[in-house]
């Protein structure tokens, strides 16, 4: 089966230099120096129809940037995004409209992701009216009620404003807004991070139910590794804007290969296990402003050698479909671990 969503070599940089005056440097003559954040450095992977692919990684590693490039909130510097075989990242704002209805996004902050001045009804009606011009008012009303029911919010509450709802309910409404245009693909950027533990399971169930009912495809971003293990078919591990490893959930969690994946998975808080036995990484996460040479992880990697410091490891697809970008794995010198 070919990929439903295909992400190829996405590169995204943010210029944060500010004004012209701040850019000018006088070292050895006058020249402009730009401060650039390398948020994504050539990330590629594919998502099959109906599956959930999750992205995990440390804060600032580019997960949200990736999501926003795929959904075209940001324009990537280079790279391509294909939707069902059709390249969508270079379409004009007008040409992309039909795809807007097919790809939707749910955000992290249930308090910021709904317009505080619009009622639930207005929030949900707007996308329907915009994408389905020929739907009558009463049909649209029915549709609003239907999506509200789908996400478990009483349609009688449609005249209420967001501040009258709890965090979990707001997240349901955000999901309803995404569902209103009948999408096939939903990107969820940490949709449960801001919710109570006892609410998280409700929202995750909702995501899974909707997927079962409507065959939705998810790109799911989370830093909760147990949740990711539970809901995903495949997992992307990112570090500092680069893909480290991409593999089936089972494969990845039982036998992580990339040294960073190993460290990350070993740090999952273990229920009832007394004390800690996680891999301790030396050093700090470097800033994406001055990227390290070679492998972005070499500064903290216990297996780094000369080649790692020099050469950027290319993602290599193994026989079982797992993708790993690590010299150590490629050379087979990590296998004995």
């Amino acid at each position, binding site marked *: 089966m070919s990929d439903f969503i295909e992400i190829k070599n996405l590169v995204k940089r943010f210029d944060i230099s500010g004004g012209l005056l701040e850019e000018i440097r006088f070292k050895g003559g006058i020249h402009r120096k730009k401060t650039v954040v390398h948020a994504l450095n050539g990330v590629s992977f594919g998502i099959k129809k109906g599956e959930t692919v999750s992205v995990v990684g440390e804060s600032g590693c580019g997960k949200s940037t990736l999501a926003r490039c795929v959904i075209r909130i940001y324009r990537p510097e280079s790279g391509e995004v294909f939707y069902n075989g059709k390249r969508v990242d270079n379409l004009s704002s007008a040409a992309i409209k039909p795809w807007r209805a097919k790809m939707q996004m749910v955000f992290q902050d249930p308090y*910021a*992701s709904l317009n505080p001045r619009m009622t639930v009804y207005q929030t949900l009606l707007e996308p329907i009216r915009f994408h389905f011009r020929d739907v009558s008012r009463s049909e649209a009303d029915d549709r609003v009620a239907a999506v509200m029911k789908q996400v478990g919010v009483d349609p009688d509450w449609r005249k209420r404003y967001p501040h009258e709802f709890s965090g979990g309910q707001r997240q349901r409404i955000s999901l309803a807004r995404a569902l209103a245009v009948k999408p096939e693909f939903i990107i969820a950027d940490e949709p449960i991070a801001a919710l109570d533990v006892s609410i998280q399971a409700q929202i995750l169930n909702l995501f899974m139910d909707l997927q079962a009912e409507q065959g939705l495809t998810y790109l799911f971003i989370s830093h909760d590794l147990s949740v990711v293990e539970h809901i995903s078919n495949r997992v992307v591990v990112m570090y500092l804007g680069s893909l480290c490893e991409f593999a089936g959930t089972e494969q990845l969690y039982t036998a992580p290969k990339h040294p960073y994946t190993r460290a990350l998975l070993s740090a999952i808080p273990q229920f009832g296990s007394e004390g800690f036995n996680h891999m301790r990484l030396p050093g700090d996460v470097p800033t994406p402003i001055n990227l390290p040479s070679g492998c972005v992880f070499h500064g903290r990697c216990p297996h780094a050698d000369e080649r790692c410091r020099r050469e950027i490891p290319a993602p290599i697809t193994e026989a079982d479909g797992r993708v790993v970008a690590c010299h150590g794995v490629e050379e087979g010198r990590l296998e004995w671990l």
Partner: protein
Amino acid sequence: MKLFKKITASNLFYNFLRDPMAIGSATVLLFLLVASFGAPLFTSHNPYDQTTIDIMDAELPPIWTGAADADSRFLLGTDPQGRDMLSTMLYGMRVSVLIGAGAVVLQSLIGIIIGLIAGYKGGRLEALLMRLADVQLSFSTYMVAIFISAVFQGIFGMGVYSDYALGLLILVIGFAEWPQYARTVRASVMAEKNKEYVEAARVIGLPQRRIMFRHILPNTMTPVLVISTVQMANAIMSEAALSFIGLGMPPSQPSLGSLIKSGFDYIASGSWWISLFPGIALVVLILSINLLGDWLRDYLNPKLYKD
């Protein structure tokens, strides 16, 4: 009725009822507004109606001074043209408030649109618009107003000027102060536009104009409301100042400022009331607007504007 309920149930109203300063200034302001806009109902004289004015009544002192020439018809005395001070003042306050309100509406229209575009679009356009605002701000309101009024008076003569003075003052003061709005709106647009609900609107594919006006603009109105009070007070002050130097409202349709000016020449001759009463009215008006604005600012944003 529903609206009334909504207002009385709101936090704003609750907070208002618990702030004596707010209640006090709102009451004073309301009193002044009712008195000035209802002036034809409350006053004995219409200062615009030449036939009711008798030049023989000029410069009569207020009745309580007990002066021999005090006239019981004129509670606060009369001005140099023989108009009843109280009536003229109320009509004058109406003119002042009208100019202030008109100028604020104009300022906010220009400022909000420019601020919204600059904040949302960013980049070169933003830089250009905001530099424009800086340039505009660097000419003080008075400079602009003096220049335009003087040119207008010079070209068209005093007669035409009198006919258009009100509109002209609104335009001049409105144009001079839009950058305040543009800056405020731009700042809050920049904060709003990165919020997730705006991103959600973009993901839906809504056109930029709809995102700007339907989603972002309503969420930037709080600071606009706050500065509007200050701007209103400023506009009334600007008008008064311009009138005082003779570039504002003509004596035939006096504003508070032109009344103060017309009385100023007579202070030396002992007719203090002609300047004093409009002066007091002006101060009370400005003060009540500013106090109400302060309360609103504290209520709406306890953190942002301190210092």
